[in-house]
């Protein structure tokens, strides 16, 4: 979703920070269903110090990121509700809160990622827990329908949204749900979300981490990384597609390029090749497969390393290259195919990211996005590939939360009068 859906061919020179990334709040005041009173505001004070300032609050606080494949919803559950508030809380709102916080699955496709929950977070002066919920984008009409049935509009809240779907479904929200979306600029949310989440940490742990000794399977370990001086950094957001941003400061960033070979490609190809139906299933298959049966390695062609070009024998020379032969096509498993798809997409993203980092003269690359959710294989591979091919010059960084979710923290709060 969100910016991650911009793939190839998308031009190499993203919109320069500022102009194209102007906060998407220009349509905010349109329509009657929107009240400005419950606006929340984040004020970003340099340097890296985020002060959250709540002007006034009417719950519920929601944020939506409507991507190409997945919709990500964050919900702030206030834990410091006073008796008075409890009293005033309308039935509708209560039922929503109960429904969201007491379930981990919604309908057949909605899932709450309990492990990501941010507890006892202070947001805009309120203490509470931040919940992360996701469901497929194709269920968006049903979601709007539900909002309509539950008279969501009567709560007079603002539904902040980002991602391509914020544009695509805006009209549906308006006509079916009597809701006006507050659209926020995605790149802005992405950049600020990354910086913000690192500042608040993850339930006391560090949000940002890296893999030490990525090229050594035994000594490789996940270690916290201090993003105190984050600039410049390359931000690679892997959603259905991939967007790559060069961030020079919180207000100075640009979209460098994008590629259409992203999470959607992995999942889409896996569905076609293995008949799987969920991303989790595809990943699970991949974790049990052997891509070297599918891919043609350098050593398969040269019998070992290709010394003239300094290519190690284990490097992939041709993704799916062995599948040119019928015998080999007949001998691979679905798991092998899923693994090869994952390796192919991941290596390619690493390669493009590395070239962008070189062109932009940046040596820290932060990989975010839904593709990396529960996807250790890809993260380790990205860390490895970046380290290996840059001869240790580039460092791959990761965040505990998918940045899609991080957007919404911004979204929820971002309002300027």
């Amino acid at each position: 979703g969100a910016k991650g859906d911009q793939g190839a061919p998308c031009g190499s020179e993203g919109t320069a920070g500022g102009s194209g990334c102007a906060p998407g709040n220009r349509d905010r005041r349109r329509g009657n269903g929107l009240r400005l009173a419950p606006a929340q505001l984040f004020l970003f004070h340099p340097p890296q110090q985020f002060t959250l300032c709540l002007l006034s609050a009417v719950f519920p606080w929601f944020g939506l990121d409507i991507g190409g494949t997945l919709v990500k919803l964050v919900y702030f559950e206030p834990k410091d509700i006073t008796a008075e508030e409890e009293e005033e809380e309308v039935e509708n709102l209560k039922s929503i809160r109960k429904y969201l916080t007491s379930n981990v699955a919604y309908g057949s496709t909605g899932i709450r990622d309990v492990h990501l929950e941010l507890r006892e977070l202070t947001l805009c002066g309120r203490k509470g827990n931040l919940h992360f919920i996701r469901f497929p984008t194709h269920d968006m009409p049903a979601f709007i329908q539900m909002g309509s049935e539950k008279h969501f509009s009567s709560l007079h809240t603002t539904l902040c949204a980002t991602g391509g779907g914020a544009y695509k479904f805006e009209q549906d929200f308006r006509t079916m749900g009597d809701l006006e979306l507050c659209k926020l600029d995605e790149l802005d949310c992405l950049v600020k979300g990354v910086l913000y989440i690192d500042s608040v940490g993850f339930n006391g742990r560090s949000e940002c981490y890296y893999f030490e000794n990525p090229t050594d399977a035994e000594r490789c370990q996940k270690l916290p990384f201090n993003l105190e001086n984050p600039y410049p950094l390359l931000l690679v957001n892997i959603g259905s597609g991939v967007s790559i941003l060069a961030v020079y400061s919180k207000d100075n960033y640009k979209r460098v390029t994008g590629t259409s070979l992203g999470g959607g490609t992995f999942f889409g190809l896996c569905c076609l090749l293995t008949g799987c139906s969920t991303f989790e299933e595809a990943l699970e298959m991949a974790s049990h497969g052997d891509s070297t049966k599918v891919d043609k390695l350098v050593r398969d062609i040269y019998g070992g390393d290709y010394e003239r070009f300094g290519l190690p024998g284990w490097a992939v020379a041709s993704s799916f290259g062995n599948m040119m032969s019928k015998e080999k096509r007949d001998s691979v498993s679905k798991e092998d195919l899923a693994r090869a798809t994952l390796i192919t997409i991941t290596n390619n993203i690493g390669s493009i990211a590395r070239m962008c980092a070189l062109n932009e003269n940046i040596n820290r690359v932060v990989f975010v996005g839904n593709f990396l959710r529960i996807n250790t294989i890809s993260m380790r591979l990205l860390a490895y590939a970046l380290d290996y091919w840059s001869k240790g010059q580039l460092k791959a960084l990761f965040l505990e939360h998918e940045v899609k979710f991080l957007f919404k923290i911004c979204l929820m709060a971002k309002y300027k009068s």
Partner: protein
Amino acid sequence: KMLCHFSPSGAAGSTPVKIPAGAGGSLTKLAYYSTVQHKVARVRSFDHSGKDIDNEPLYEISVQEEITARLHFIKFENTYIETCLDFIKDHLVNTETKVIKATGGGAYKFKDLIEKKLGLKVDKEDVMTCLIKGCNFVLRNIPHEVFAYQKDSDTEFRFQTNHPNIFPYLLVNIGSGVSIVKVESEDKFEWIGGSSIGGGTFWGLGALLTKTKKFDELLQLASKGQHTNVDMLVKDVYGGACQTLGLSGNLIASSFGKSTTADKEFSKEDMAKSLLHMISNDIGQLACLHAKLHNLDKIYFGGFFIRGHPVTMRTITYSINFFSKGEVQALFLRHEGYLGAIGAFLKGAEQDNPNQYSWGENYAGSSGLMSTSPDVSPLQRTRSGTFDMLEMDRLERPLVNLPLLKDPSTYIPDTVDLTDDAMARKYWLTCFEEALDGVAKRAAASQPDSVDAQERAEKFRQKYWNKLQTLRQQPFAYGTLTVRSLLDTREHCLNEFSFPDPYSKVKQKENGIALKCFQSVIESLDSLGWEERQFALVKGLLAGNVFDWGAKAVSDQWLERLKGPPHKCALIFADNSGIDIILGVFPFVRELLSRGTEVILACNSGPALNDVTYSESLIVTERIAAMDPVIHSALRDEKLLLVQTGSSSPCLDLSVAAVVAERQTDLVVIEGMGRAIHTNYYAVLRCESLKLAVIKNSWLADRLGGKIFSVIFKYEVPCK
């Protein structure tokens, strides 16, 4: 890719045969160097002492066997590797060194097989080194080697003029995987990156998705598909364009992003198309990132993914244009498929110092580029996948840009580009078709003593006819189509069927007749006043054709020039035998010599039509010198120099001439239709030039705004 090479035997007088063979991931390329015996017409002066000169022919013509070197490249599918080895075995000649040089993946894979089958030790060569060597070679030696692909244009292939400086460039080789190599000079290149997503991915993944086994069939599927059914576009995510980022709604947001469901069926065509876009875009993007990092703007694409496939050339071109915002051009090579094989050959032939030679594409033996037309392609595609051929003839001297060209990088020899100009193309193809029977008859008649002359002439007719038909459908098959390439192809085809010089007897006769008139012509010229003589000399240069002095004004300029100081040295490109050279060129040469101008007379190395050849010119000059003291002393004092052009074409390409203008040449004279009109009409030189011809073709006269038999007399003085 595997390339082998047999070291030539060192035995004197033997015929070294070099046979490099290449085996790609899927296709085997067999390259072999052979010596070709073919007939050539030789002329030899008689010893005339004590003979009746008047009744003897001027010189003796004999048809001899000549041995020249030729490079052959053919390709076929890997599965035929054993057949390939049998072929090599059968053709091994005089190999004393029992080592075969091999390179690339196939060299490892087939090492044992080769050693067993041929009884030779496999000596491996680096494949990329060979590839780059081959690339440099074709960029240097083959005109119109490079082209850009243009979508939706009448001429899909836009051929580029060979630039004298070919470096630096980026070579993106898309085989099973992708290699990106930066080439800085003949021997300096660097692998700067690569990608595993390449042709093997398209083929392998495509085969899995569509159950289609063949690469070509996958491309066929792709050309019929709709990727938007499988890909998630920006508009699928945003509902339209993404204005904040300036992304059009039709851009692909996520390849295969719509196939993230187990319930829906997708058509093979749509999946193949989506895969093609995914891979082409990815490669284009990486290539642009590398080009940007290394500040390069020339990217040549090669490898089997590209090779002759308009579909992939189109998608790669689109991708490069998109990602570079039009700053980088995707370029392709006509003989890209043979680079490795050519390089391997050169590598093996290093002790021969290949730079002392130059090479010319043999149009008769080369199959040319494939058509893009869907109607012709299925059959031809399959055929050319197996029988695609390239032949190159070795010329015994290096050819270079004539230093007198004002700007070699923008010099285009040909006056009309028939690839571009459909009307002109139709006209000339018809012209050559209509003339074909006559040419075949003349060829047969030129060898009355040969029993199979008729049969060979018919074979020639058939072959050239087929070439013309191919060119009607695929005008781009051999680079830019021009009158010159049509003429050259005809010569190559004639040679192929042992008609090395159908005009030899005609030339012999005409030279004899003209020589007899030489003295009287000189006498009458000498009796004229100065100004009249200059007119008459120029008139003579135009070979006494019907003469319409329409160009008088220009000639006045020439006359004015002659009143000034003499030229230091004139370089004259001669045209026809007989009257033209003897009664036209020589009196003119004589006049220049008398003025104190040195003269270099350049004639073709090999025969073409009735053009005077270098060896004929030697005899003719000798005979004239015997009659004329001016010519005689000039020869003796080396004020008159006879040289060869290195060409066997009725036309003239000054960018590949054997002539190096020494002696401060300050006048170039080019005469005849082929040299001064079909080619070089617009050529700009550093020095003064005279271009003379009589237009013997009404269509062309019309094109140039004149009448048939009108005279072209272009005297040009370079701008200061």
